[in-house]
């Protein structure tokens, strides 16, 4: 399992695309949107920062799905999946080995973007334990969905398109781009069925209201539930994915 994790991490370190999606683009978006909205006097600066920084962190964590889809489809089509399946490595270790590097990248992404918020915009961090827990669960959720998507889709393009729908659609409907209060009631209701909404709720409770683990337990539970759904889909999709593998 660790062999797969190490190799995958080595490959990712050499992948410039992932650095762009994970760190550079989110920073551009955060800076851009804070600059645009700070010109309007409707929000307090701290409220603006605690809306935009976690909002874009949540949105961009889902972009890891693109990298996961590309990696898995490439391995499937090159025959590498079948080759690894011919070794004694059990299925669960293969999936965990493949998943861990992406989880690590998303955790790093959250840390870097949070630090950027703290250093540049004085983002208040709140309870570190609560922040760590929600960050870990968000990373678990995004990567487990990425894994499920990678094993389900037939083509790379389909995976990238669906990721855009999940990341951008979820961001828009989940209130990551603008406060939900200014959206219609029907939209606010839809938001409650999306993990992005619950992630933002959790982050804002910690960053804005000084909430602790017990204050965000519902968000944690719902995000964990969404993440588990991704894991279950992955396990059930793997045999079909393996059948599609070359060689």
């Amino acid at each position, binding site marked *: 399992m660790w062999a797969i994790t190490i190799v995958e991490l080595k490959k990712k370190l050499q992948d410039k695309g992932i650095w762009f999606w994970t760190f550079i683009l989110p920073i551009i978006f955060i800076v851009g949107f804070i600059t645009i909205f700070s010109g309007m006097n409707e929000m307090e600066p701290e409220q603006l920062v605690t809306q935009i920084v976690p909002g874009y962190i949540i949105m961009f964590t889902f972009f890891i799905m693109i990298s996961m889809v590309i990696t898995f489809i490439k391995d499937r089509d*090159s*025959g590498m999946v079948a*080759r690894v399946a011919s070794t004694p490595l059990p299925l669960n270790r293969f999936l965990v080995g493949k998943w861990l590097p992406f989880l690590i990248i998303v955790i790093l992404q959250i840390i870097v973007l949070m630090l950027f918020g703290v250093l540049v915009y004085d983002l208040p961090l709140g309870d570190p334990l609560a922040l760590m827990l929600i960050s870990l669960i968000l990373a678990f959720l995004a990567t487990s969905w990425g894994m499920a998507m990678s094993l389900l889709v037939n083509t790379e393009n389909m995976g990238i398109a669906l990721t855009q729908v999940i990341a951008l659609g979820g961001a828009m409907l989940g209130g990551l781009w603008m406060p939900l209060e200014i959206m219609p009631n029907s939209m606010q209701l839809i938001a409650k069925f999306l993990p992005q909404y619950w992630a933002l709720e959790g982050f804002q409770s910690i960053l804005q209201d000084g909430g602790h683990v017990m204050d965000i337990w519902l968000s944690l539970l719902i995000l964990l539930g969404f993440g588990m759904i991704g894991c279950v889909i992955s396990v059930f999709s793997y045999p079909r994915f393996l059948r599609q593998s*070359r*060689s």
Partner: protein
Amino acid sequence: MIDVRGVSKSYGSVQALNDIQFQIDEGSCFGLVGPNGAGKSTFMKILVGVLQKFDGDIQVFNKSVKQNRQAVKSFIGYVPQDICLEELLTAKDNLMYFGRLYGLSGEHLRKRIRTVLDQIGLSDKANQKITEFSGGMKRRLNIGCAILHEPSLVVLDEPTVGIDPQSRHSIFALIQQLKEMGSTVIYSSHYMEEVEQICNSVGFIDKGKLVEHGTMKHVLHKHRSASIFVSADGIGKEELSLYGDTIEKKTGFTVNCDDPLLTMGKMIEQFRQSGINPERLELSQARLEDIFFYLTGTQLRDNG
């Protein structure tokens, strides 16, 4: 012994394998031949535990592929048709990667890597990235990754596709080494002359069915018939038909007869008396490819 017991596999309405049954002796080199799409790769994938849903069973050294999949995988080295290497890594890192997947570690793994690099002739390229390798070097490393854990059974699926004669020769030498070390080898190919050269038993597969199998000697003896090829000025089909069934070819005639040596003697005598000086007078044996064609009506190269 590898005991294949009534293996069948369907993909929807397509029957990829249909009740395949045969045995392979321990330590032998078995050639599985057939055109592309015949079912060779499907069989290989079942044997190495990649395809899990199929009818029948395969016993590999007395262990069922269905019931002891993980155990069976540990003593099989699978060389897939595609080159499955991590392109961004060096040859050594690739070997390290696959060695760990087979449960090797520490000094034993490092020692095996040195030995395998030597076996595949890539010791001096150990720290080069795969992207700098030729097709033949990649093929050799592909095999190296499968033999690191010293498997009792090595399964090679079309290992010589698209490589130069030197690399092909090197791969044959490697297979010879494996045979000498006592490994059982299953070699799938649609290059019949390769199979004839390196295998001591053979199975013909076509449209999912095993149409013939046995030791190379047995199969060749059972189906091989000799003929005489004649190319000479001043002699035609009519004269040659006296010796046997004569078929006109582009550059001469093929005469099929029961006793080709005796017939050839008679021909030589007649040519001498008639003052005919043949350009070519050859005794030719049917090759494995001819036998496959005779049994299946399928020309391998047309599909390959």
